């Protein structure tokens, strides 16, 4: 039986309009279960801990990023003993998007299919990240110099305006758990036509990207890191894959282009 943790405030209360439809659909799909509602910040984590105490094997986050983050953190703290699914009804639904889930109806079908993928989170300066770390050069958006080194002896130098770190396995469950680091040299932009043009046709891909298990990034001035529980400013970031995976229900079979 599934354990649904619903944030009634997510997406400006959008759950109130679709609650009956949602319950009807999950019943039709044979994935009904226990529905509980959060009443404030931190409540989703408490409810997730309770679900694990009660031996639920599947916890569904019905909400946005904050609800998902609390539940994922709670499940991780308990050794990843339950699978996590997401019904995205929040204003921001980042992890759901990365798992290929875009709306609540599709999410229900995905939950019924129950395609599982084990994702290893990663740490950055002691903070745990479950899907994406974003690094943004501040101070007027001018690029910041960086030197990136790995334990395997790779050294990368250049300048960046932003960078992201994610686990490539989220984007394609067939790929092994490895960090995918993407470095953008300049702020995105280039006019209205830019998004329609193939980047390679203009000047290669325009960004750098590679895979690793760890990396230390030194910057010539502090940059802002977001994507974890707390934003931070730093000029040195050490990222490393964590050993303990968390199991997600994904809609991805072969992955997507990033």
């Amino acid at each position: 039986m599934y354990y649904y943790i619903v944030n009634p405030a997510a997406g400006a209360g959008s759950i109130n309009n679709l609650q009956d439809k949602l319950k009807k659909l999950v019943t039709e799909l044979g994935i009904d279960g226990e529905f509980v509602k959060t009443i404030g910040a931190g409540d989703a984590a408490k409810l997730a801990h309770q679900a694990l105490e009660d031996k639920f094997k599947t916890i569904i986050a019905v909400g946005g990023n904050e609800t998902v983050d609390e539940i994922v953190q709670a499940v991780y703290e308990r050794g990843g003993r339950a699978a996590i699914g997401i019904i995205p009804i929040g204003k921001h639904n980042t992890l759901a998007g990365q798992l290929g889930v875009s709306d609540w109806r599709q999410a229900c079908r995905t939950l019924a299919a129950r395609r599982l993928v084990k994702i290893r989170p990663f740490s950055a300066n002691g903070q745990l990240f479950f899907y994406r770390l974003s690094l943004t050069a501040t101070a007027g958006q001018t690029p910041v110099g960086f030197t990136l080194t790995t334990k395997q002896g790779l050294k990368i130098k250049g300048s960046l305006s932003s960078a992201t770190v994610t686990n490539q396995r989220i984007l394609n469950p067939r790929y092994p758990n490895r960090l995918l680091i993407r470095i953008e040299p300049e702020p995105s932009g280039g006019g209205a036509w830019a998004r329609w043009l193939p980047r390679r046709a203009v000047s290669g891909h325009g960004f750098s990207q590679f895979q690793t298990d760890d990396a230390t990034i030194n910057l010539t001035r502090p940059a802002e890191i977001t994507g974890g529980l707390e934003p931070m400013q730093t000029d040195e970031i050490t990222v490393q894959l964590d050993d303990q995976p968390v199991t997600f229900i994904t809609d991805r079979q072969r992955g997507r282009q990033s």
Partner: protein
Amino acid sequence: MLDKLRRATEADPRDTMIAHRVSVSGELTSEGNVWIDGTFSGRLRAKGHVTIGASALVEADITCDSATIVGQLQGNLRAEAALVITATGRVRGDINTQQLDVEPGAILVGQVATDDPEARPKRQPTEAGSEPTT
């Protein structure tokens, strides 16, 4: 159509890219394709296709499935399936591949070995001093 073209040119998570004005040194291993527009020195092993772009400067020994050289490579290259050196390509090093295609204008200085005796450069380079040997 544009959307289809854009998707075709976007990157797979397994691909490795080194952008223009980025320099990389060390041993690089990729499970996918590699595209280099910056500078790279060291050793490169890729299971997919390696592209050395027009602005790239590479000093490395490379092992890959196939490769296209548009920029400059100094080092030995083993491409299991095929290698293309375009008109702007500059290669100083030994080549080992099944199929070699050297466009007119390319420069190749080094030994060329092919596993298939029928596989020979399809077009000979035209610039002075560019004389591939097999």
